[in-house]
């Protein structure tokens, strides 16, 4: 019994210590501006690809990409996106543009549909 309390305490500490925080997007800035974030197709069948392009202005900017579901290929201002049947639904693609002055981001939604229609 004397080990139960220390063990539960340890678990509680780990649960708190390991909580992931939401992404910190850093300081927003007026020195970077995203002009457009567009996709060649906004609805794609599972495993088909769409090309997503982000045009932004700023000095020495870097493009970062993430999505809640799916796969990327490429990098920079243009990227290809595809998602399998695991990711059917409306998926959010986030483009983050940054330099030493700060960071801005925008999102685009891509609807992934079933590979084989019911």
């Amino acid at each position: 019994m004397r080990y139960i309390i220390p063990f539960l305490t340890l678990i509680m500490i780990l649960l708190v210590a390991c909580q992931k925080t939401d992404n910190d997007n850093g300081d927003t800035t007026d020195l970077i501006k995203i002009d457009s974030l567009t996709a060649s197709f906004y609805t794609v069948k599972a495993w088909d690809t769409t090309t997503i392009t982000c045009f932004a202005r700023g000095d020495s900017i870097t493009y970062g990409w993430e999505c809640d579901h799916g796969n990327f290929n490429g990098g920079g201002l243009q990227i290809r996106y595809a998602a399998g049947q695991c990711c059917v639904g409306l998926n959010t693609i986030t483009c983050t543009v940054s330099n030493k002055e700060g960071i801005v981001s925008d999102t685009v939604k891509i609807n992934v549909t079933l590979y084989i229609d019911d």
Partner: protein
Amino acid sequence: MIKMIRKTLFLLMSIFISGNILGQCCSAGNPFFYGELSSLSKKNLQLVTGYKYGTAIRYFSGSDPIDIKFVDQAWFNYLTFQVIYGLTERLTIQGDIGYFMNKIETYLIEDWVTSKGFGLGDANITLKYLVYSNFKKHLQIVPAIGVTLPVGVFDQEVNHVKLPITVQPSSGSFKYQVSLFINKGTKNSKFNFTLFAMYEYAQLINSENFYYKYGNQLLFSFLTSYSLTRKLSFALELRNENRARALRNDDQTVESSGFSLVYLIPHLSWAFYNNWFVAVNTDIPVYKYYNGIQLSNAFSVSIRLSYTINFGKKDLREFAVN
């Protein structure tokens, strides 16, 4: 002599199977890895290190293969380290940590670059309690509870592009397990049987950019082992893994998630020197059913090395008559 065989067989059995973290190849999180299942005697410390290679090569729709031209092959090379300590004669604590040397997907789409993740996976803490042990009946029952901690890498990027979740080393999710281990010997000291069942509940991941809940998992395993020599054992296991469908944004069910799998798993284990054990096994899927369309597991192979140190008196509690 019989006692020696039983002792060796029991120790080999106890490292054959483990309620470690479950993960389909190749999805986020640690793969299933065999380790210590039983409880240890008081002040016994067991150190386990292991390596696992797993691969997935075909898409399945239900129980049938389907031709999908996307992922060509997926595989991983994985290391694990476990520390197990007998707190009392009945209570054992176990810690596990995993590390992916690599976790790779290659693609059939032209110019699509290989995705490669690596790094620290999930950690796991398990508390096991020996509720029943009877040497005369050759029976031992050990329930356990555990928690998986997503301490590893879940947001790995390459050139500022986030890798797909399937090659992220960590699952990103807390998971909670309850399990039951039953070991039953026979009058023939060379045979031994083990039953293992586990239920795992996955906690919702709800961050700014990601809302996802892995399906809960139910596992059953039946294993029989035979002592070939005093130190060499062979075991055959039948394991059934069932995972429910996942949930995503707005609690939508992910139709192409969840599965029911049956593996046939031969094990070979060898005890050497004092308290050293090495074991190899391979997971061969004999039945696969995937909800929707998913990349399916092919096979995996593991090797595990274990060493036990006794800091207490030189007894083996598993032979104590209840």
